[in-house]
């Protein structure tokens, strides 16, 4: 099946001439997302401006058995929005209106193509906070965040995108537009259908609007930076902080390679000689913040922290967080290909996992930069490699599998926040088991019987 001139004529009729791209120069830039080494040109790229247009495109695609891959800014890290050959890429960046900020109910209603940062800015302007802050928030779209159930640096205390979605408008595989959820804090009227679509990676429906929960902006915030001579010491400090019943908003970990790469980019004076670094942030009532910061410093020192420094200003805190968000991209300074993993373990197992990653790297003679959201057990071991070196890529495969197997053995998962997409597809059965996978398949068949929505992602039907 390829896109016939007739099909393109229909799409142009629905969306208008400029909103249907087919020339190679227009389409090639949509062949990938943020994931390394995955590439597939689309048949065409279309830009709907509203949900009715999305519905018409989906109806047409279903009638003609054309695969549709929905996409925002293409910053995903598991190949979820990589096109399907000869398929339609449904790019939602032009659905970019902020529809309503409701200060009485602490919600914001936005279209799917609104950039995450814009949601955060609108909330902040009203003295509110939209907590999920994925690394790509300056350009990622909120629809993509919901479809991938993105995490971020504040997951530990505030949770992930799912925890902030109160409702959504979805276009189903038959072109029906439905509204799921509402502004009620409590609602048990039937199945929570919105939850089915959160993290569905565009395989069950097209999210066109999202109603998000906001929280009051914390009154105070304190950022600490601790350095360690051993990576597992930093991990032990994190487990100890959690065990001491402190839930800071951020507990970020960076290893030596990552620190060096980030510093080379951000130039904010990170400790270049440290083996590991923890970025710790607590927010809330000023007195609580003071107390928690003091205790975290104490625990870090008890676990062998070489130094603990406190950010002097809000600007410095923001600079540190921004620098940390650039970690994945900054690691690309070291090697042509950076393969980012997303292994996640219960927090009590962090030190074991960190040690294992180090051993695997040594065993397979690979360079691995590790950073991650240590506070929620979500690590990002990143292979610094070269996709043109087939022999090394093979070793990467082995190492990756070993890391996932070990994470699962520790009670963890293969992906904490990036999704399965194409990159983690083969690891999914091992992670969730046949029963769970079967249930997912049944759901997919029910909601998308013709398998037109992002086919081949997460699992095969």
């Amino acid at each position, binding site marked *: 099946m390829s896109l016939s001139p007739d099909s393109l004529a229909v799409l142009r009729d629905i969306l208008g001439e400029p909103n249907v*791209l087919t*020339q*190679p*120069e*227009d389409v*090639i*830039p*949509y*062949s*990938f*997302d*943020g994931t*390394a080494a995955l590439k597939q*040109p689309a048949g065409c790229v279309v*830009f709907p401006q509203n949900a009715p247009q999305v519905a018409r495109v989906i109806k047409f695609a279903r009638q003609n058995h054309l695969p549709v891959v929905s996409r925002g*800014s*293409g*910053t995903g890290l598991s190949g979820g929005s990589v096109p399907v050959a000869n398929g339609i890429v449904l790019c939602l*960046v*032009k659905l*970019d209106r902020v529809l309503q900020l409701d200060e009485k109910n602490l919600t914001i209603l936005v279209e799917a193509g609104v*950039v995450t*940062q814009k949601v955060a800015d609108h909330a902040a302007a009203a003295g509110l906070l939209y907590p999920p802050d994925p690394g*790509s928030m*300056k*350009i990622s779209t909120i629809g993509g965040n919901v479809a991938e159930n993105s995490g971020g640096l504040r997951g530990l205390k505030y949770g992930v995108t799912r925890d902030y979605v109160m409702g959504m408008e979805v276009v189903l595989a038959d072109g029906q537009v439905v509204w799921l959820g509402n502004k009620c804090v409590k609602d048990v009227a039937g199945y929570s259908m919105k939850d089915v679509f959160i993290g569905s990676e565009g395989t069950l429906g097209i999210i066109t609007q999202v109603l998000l929960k906001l929280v009051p902006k914390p009154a105070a915030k304190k950022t600490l930076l601790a350095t360690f001579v051993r990576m597992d010491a930093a991990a032990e400090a994190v487990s100890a902080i959690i065990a001491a019943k402190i839930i800071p908003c951020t507990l970020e970990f960076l290893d030596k390679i990552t620190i060096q*790469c*980030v510093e*080379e*980019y*951000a130039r904010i004076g990170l400790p270049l000689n440290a083996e590991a670094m923890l970025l710790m942030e607590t927010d809330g009532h000023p007195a609580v913040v003071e107390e928690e910061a003091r205790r975290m410093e104490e625990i870090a020192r008890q676990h062998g922290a070489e130094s603990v420094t406190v950010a002097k200003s809000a600007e410095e805190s923001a600079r540190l967080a921004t620098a940390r968000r*650039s*970690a*994945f*991209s*900054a*690691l*690309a*300074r070291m090697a042509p290909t*950076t393969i980012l993993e997303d292994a996640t373990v219960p927090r009590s197992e962090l030190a074991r996992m960190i040690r294992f990653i180090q051993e695997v790297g040594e065993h397979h003679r690979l360079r691995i930069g590790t950073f991650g959201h240590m506070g929620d057990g979500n690590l990002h071991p990143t292979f610094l490699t070269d996709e043109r070196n087939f022999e090394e890529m093979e070793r990467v495969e082995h190492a990756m599998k070993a890391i996932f197997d070990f994470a699962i053995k520790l009670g963890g998962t293969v992906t904490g926040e990036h999704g399965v997409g194409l990159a983690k597809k083969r690891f999914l059965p091992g992670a969730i088991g046949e029963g769970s996978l079967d249930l997912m398949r049944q759901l997919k068949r029910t909601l998308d019987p013709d398998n037109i929505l992002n086919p081949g992602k997460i699992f095969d039907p």
Partner: protein
Amino acid sequence: MHCGMCLPTCPTYDATKLERHSPRGRISLMRALADGDLELGSEFGKEMYYCLGCLACETACPAGVNYAAMFEAARADIETSGVLAKPKRNFVRWFTVKFIFIRPRLLRRLGQLLYLYQVSGLQSLARKLRLTALLPQNLRELEPLTPTVRRYFSDALIREVETPTPRCHRVGLLTGCIQDLIYSEINRDTADVLLAHGCEVFTPRLQSCCGSLHAHNGELALAQEMARRNILAIEGCAGPLEALDAIISNAGGCGSHLKNYAHLLHDDLVFAARAATWSRKLKDIHEWLAEIGLQRPTCPPQPQRVTYHESCHLCHGQKVIHAPREVLRAIPGLEIVELPESNWCCGSAGIYNITQPEMAGRLLDRKLANLQRTGVSVVASANPGCSVQLEAGLRQAARDVRVVHPISLLAEAFRRTNPRTEVNRKSRCPDDL
């Protein structure tokens, strides 16, 4: 690496929301060409010329991707292939890139003619009689952009060697091509500020274009020729480069390219080593003052509210961000109001405002709206292209805002400090303080 962190900082992506108009998209097209997945055609050519070359993407890129080099190479390939060749485009390119801008004497003659046309009243007469309406459409649209040519060019304002007492540093001064014609006083101001900082200033009387125009427009061989000429010019005036403490540029766009001579001439048998020295010594004026210790004029404060527009190639290309602001802060009485989106391209982008007037106009409008928000009457800018663009925009909007180089404001303050000498040659070395 294709993480997309560059997208929100790219003016053409921001305006269109199309990946091909983004750094990531353009790089994917270059890669598709290299991998044989795409043929070099006119669409690729148009895309590469739709890029402003502002390099905001390089500032945003955590991975340190060298977009500028890829972009220059792509434009060179486009010119070699001839996919954009058309008689009019060919003529305009030949006349500007290959004829006028490699002939500094001729450029000055042309400047003098333009000066006479402007001071004789012919220009305003032509405008009043609407003779400009007879011009072809794109020239007609550009006519109001024509900057005012100065009566005296840099060679008439600056002696070849000017020496302060005491002398602490020896520097070469680059006067530029367009700046030499339309902002020659900025070059005089730069020399004065250097003298006030104890720098002996060597200024070759006849200097070529730095070659950025050529490099950015796919003429790398001519860019190399311009680089060799400039190295020879400075050596001819000041002796071996090694004996200089710095070579000074005061134009953001030129400086960014001038610093790149080492790379540009790296395989030139005769010039590679000298080009490497050149690049090491090349400093933007603000950067140099910060390095040797910026001196604060002691004149009585003259209250004034100023904002600072960042030239793309000064902030993104050269990463000189704080130094110009420090220069402004050193001037007594100046209140600095931060310009929203100060490092967002104004649309000038070399000759982009000539080749892509529509996008350039949108960016200028955005810049003017941000300027209005500051409510200032003076905007400082350290690049002649930006200054022309801003002056034209402000004139058309009938807004009474002065566009001035930060160094000119500093020079004015030094002159107020010491009013009797027009040129301030009295200097103090930091060691003496």
